[in-house]
């Protein structure tokens, strides 16, 4: 009696969970399949659920209308440079706040906490004016620099640096290591998981970012993927095959990374708030 009740609950939970999984995953499948069909076929009723043979053709026309290779490169270059620099900057600041006593520390930290709470939309207009006066529209630095010092990542690094025992820092000082060397050879290696989480977080937020690049980039050869995709929608005649391929290209690299490093990814995207 009890086992049959257990079995039916089990079946119920499994079937609900599987329906949820299908709802989560199906759009990905459909997007990838769509990238292999010509525009007209994507709207065929009943829908085509198996891959077609139009992938190369879609790629060709996407290269023509967008210069997709350059767009992809822009996104990749910006995201990588941004990730490396912002992770380093956050780690340095986080380390100073966690492990040093210095005048003005609380004041500096207060400014960082405040900037954590302010919606970034407030800065859009003055930042745009600034980019115009620097003559930085359509440049990589316009995308990379304004959000390079990420308050949340600094905060996160500080939390993680606090756990590092003072004794190992003291020991390296006694051994004669300089402050910079301690940071690079002692601190960074022991905080690797936190660094990975922050790096993934920063990479994802930059790779997916739309609003700021949309404002600062208006020349096609500087577009990032999200901006390029949104420009495709604005066209008079939307080619849905191109559009599907574009979204697939912006999603697949992240998907592969995610499947390879899913634990670090989840903790990274959740901002290190979930640990395993």
């Amino acid at each position, binding site marked *: 009696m009890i086992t049959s009740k257990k079995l039916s609950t089990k079946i119920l939970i499994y079937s609900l969970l599987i329906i949820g999984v299908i709802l989560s995953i199906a759009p*990905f499948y459909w997007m990838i399949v769509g990238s292999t069909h010509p525009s007209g076929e994507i709207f065929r009723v009943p829908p085509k659920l198996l891959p077609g043979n139009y992938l190369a053709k879609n790629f060709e026309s996407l290269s023509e209308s967008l210069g997709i290779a350059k767009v992809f490169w822009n996104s990749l270059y910006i995201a990588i440079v941004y990730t490396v620099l912002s992770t380093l900057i956050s780690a340095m600041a986080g380390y100073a706040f966690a492990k040093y006593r210095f005048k003005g520390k609380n004041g500096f930290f207060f400014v960082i906490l405040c900037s954590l709470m302010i919606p970034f939309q407030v800065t859009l207009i003055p930042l745009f004016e600034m980019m115009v006066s620097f003559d930085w529209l359509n440049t990589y630095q316009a995308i990379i620099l304004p959000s390079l010092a990420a308050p949340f990542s600094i905060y996160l690094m500080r939390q993680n640096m606090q756990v590092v025992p003072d004794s190992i820092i003291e020991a390296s000082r006694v051994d004669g290591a*300089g402050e910079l060397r301690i940071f690079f050879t002692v601190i960074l290696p022991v905080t690797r998981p936190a660094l990975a989480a922050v790096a993934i977080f920063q990479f994802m937020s930059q790779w*997916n970012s739309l609003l700021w690049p949309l404002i600062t980039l208006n020349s096609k050869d500087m577009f990032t993927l999200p901006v390029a995709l949104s420009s495709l929608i604005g066209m008079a005649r939307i080619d849905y095959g191109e559009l599907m391929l574009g979204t697939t290209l912006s999603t697949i690299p992240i998907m592969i990374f995610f499947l390879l490093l899913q634990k670090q990814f*989840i903790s990274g*995207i959740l901002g290190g*708030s*979930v640990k395993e």
Partner: protein
Amino acid sequence: MEKTEQVVSTASNYRTKTRKNILTPKSAPYVFIAPAFILILIFTVYPVISSFILSFQEVRGVEKTFVGLSNYTRLIHDPVFYKSLINTFQILIVQVPIMIFLAILIAVGLNSTLIKAKSLFRIAYFMPAITALVAASIVFMILLDEHFGLVNYVLSLIGLDNIPWLTTPFWAKVSVIFVMTWRWTGYNMVIFLAGLQNIPADLYEAASMDGAGKVKQFFMITLPQLKPVFIFTVVMSTIGTLQLFDEPFILTHGGPNSATMTITLYLYETGFKFFDFGYASAIAYVLVLITAVISWVQMKLVGDTEQ
């Protein structure tokens, strides 16, 4: 005696080293925070102040004139701004509870001892959270097409009429909520799942020894223990929704008839379509005010739970 010697030798060690190293333990922290702090001063603090001043100005080309509160009084009488406020809050009030409820439901299901392959399920549910909002919105824009979309096709199989997902005010809002829920439920679910796994098992053991059933345990133990996680996810989702932009921008461009116009989308249009910088700055400051008030209320709630 030995101790003082040690201290002296350490101190002299420091001195010899400082000659070799550029940074001393005294100057090092300033050097470490300098890049972050300088960037924040230039790209956050200055714009926040500048934007505040701009909100009292009218900008024509390069000319700026102070106009007092007129941007703010204009806001009060602006029907589109009202609409964007109402839309944002409607979406917030409907979407966040639905999503949090689904996230808890899935997390509890996944946490059940009857379920195997948990990590596989977790990967699948988390997948939407790694996609760009732009990509997700584009895919759903096509899936939700009124005449040829897959969603209406599936609905037609069970005998339902075509739903004008993106072309009528009501359904356009539903579509935005739909995409947001698809994108963020798994994300929140993983946070709840971690919260569930952190509940000490002996709490349940003690309860079942006292004769409490599964349902009672859920309401007496699980839900109260999840409260901090619950508040965290609600706060994060609320702040995110107040800044909603990508989904309505791609799906509906704020339409039809401004039905999916949000605060940030309106700010974007005012600032970068009409280049009305003063007015856009006033919109931005209203957003700051709303965020501050809501954060304050939510922080008070958190404070209450800690007592």
